[in-house]
């Protein structure tokens, strides 16, 4: 094993540990996201430790260069993540609008109440 392999293997193990630690502390991260990110670092770990195996996997996809295969995989993953983020922001946008609407109605009804009381 060369030093770069060892660094990558250690880094990915540290990252997996960090993800598990952060998700156990903060309940805001869903289990699905936790699994997703752990899988990414698990793949990094496996690529570092068993490069030969992944070269064969890359060849299965018609890419005869492991680095290129990893870059392409990374781009694909990045697009998946961007789409997920877009979906999440759209959901949050809808929630913010609904909340803004509720505040508008509440503000209006409370104003009406005040006017009503003043008239009495």
């Amino acid at each position, binding site marked *: 094993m060369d030093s770069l392999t060892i660094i990558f293997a250690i880094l990915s193990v540290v990252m997996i540990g960090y993800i598990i630690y952060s998700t156990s502390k903060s309940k805001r991260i869903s289990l699905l996201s936790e699994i997703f990110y752990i899988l990414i670092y698990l793949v990094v770990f496996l690529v570092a430790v068993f490069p030969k195996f992944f070269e064969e996997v890359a060849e299965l996809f018609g890419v005869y260069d492991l680095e290129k295969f990893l870059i392409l995989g990374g781009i694909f993953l990045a697009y998946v993540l961007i789409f997920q983020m877009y979906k999440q922001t759209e959901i949050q*946008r809808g929630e*913010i*609008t609904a909340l*803004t*609407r509720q505040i*508008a*109605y509440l503000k*209006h009804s409370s104003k009406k109440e005040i006017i009503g009381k003043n008239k009495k």
Partner: protein
Amino acid sequence: MNINQNLKNEIYFVIPAYNEGMELIKVLDNLHENGFSNLIVIDDGSTDSSALNITSLNTKINNLVLLEHVINRGQGAALKTGIDFALDCDDCKYIVTFDSDGQHRLSDLHHFITELEIGTCDIAIGSRFINPESKKNIPFKKKILLKGALFVTYYLSRNWFTDTHNGYRVMNKTAARKINISLDRFEHASEILNEVVVNKIPYKEVPVIIDYTEYSIAKGQKISNAIKILVKMIFKTN
């Protein structure tokens, strides 16, 4: 058709506004002077004195309702806020969506009301491309943009409309309940037409004349918005 006062009392205007300043006051004054008093203004997070100006009109116009979005959410969101409010008003028969920049003519309203009163449709949609006179008014860049939007709307709803981004519409409560506006910004115009088709709401396009002023053109949609609308609509329909 002449709109009598009893009917005028059953017509609710939904007017979204964002930093319209005195233009909005002119629009509201005009509506009030013509006997329309059910006016719902949605101040969509304006940073100018719009809300303050409207509040000062409250004493003059009894049924003027001001709904304030604490932050800007877009014209589609503002319209939904106003339409939902109007739906809760017992005496509301028709809901008019009306621009706050003075582009729409009140004199066109009778075209809409006539169609709804004789029962040919549940929603009447304004079109600036029916009357040859009104076509002349449209700036060239705007015309290109609007024509492009027709194809996009056809692709998404499989229905040809003559004008897809006209904010002047009149609907009864049945139609208003069926139309779900989920898109916040300018893309709501295409979404409304899509909802009309999907929910099989009887509709009629009626001729309107749009008054383009320097002010309204400056506030209007840009080509970059058209691209955003296209992307949003594709995501929404798929």
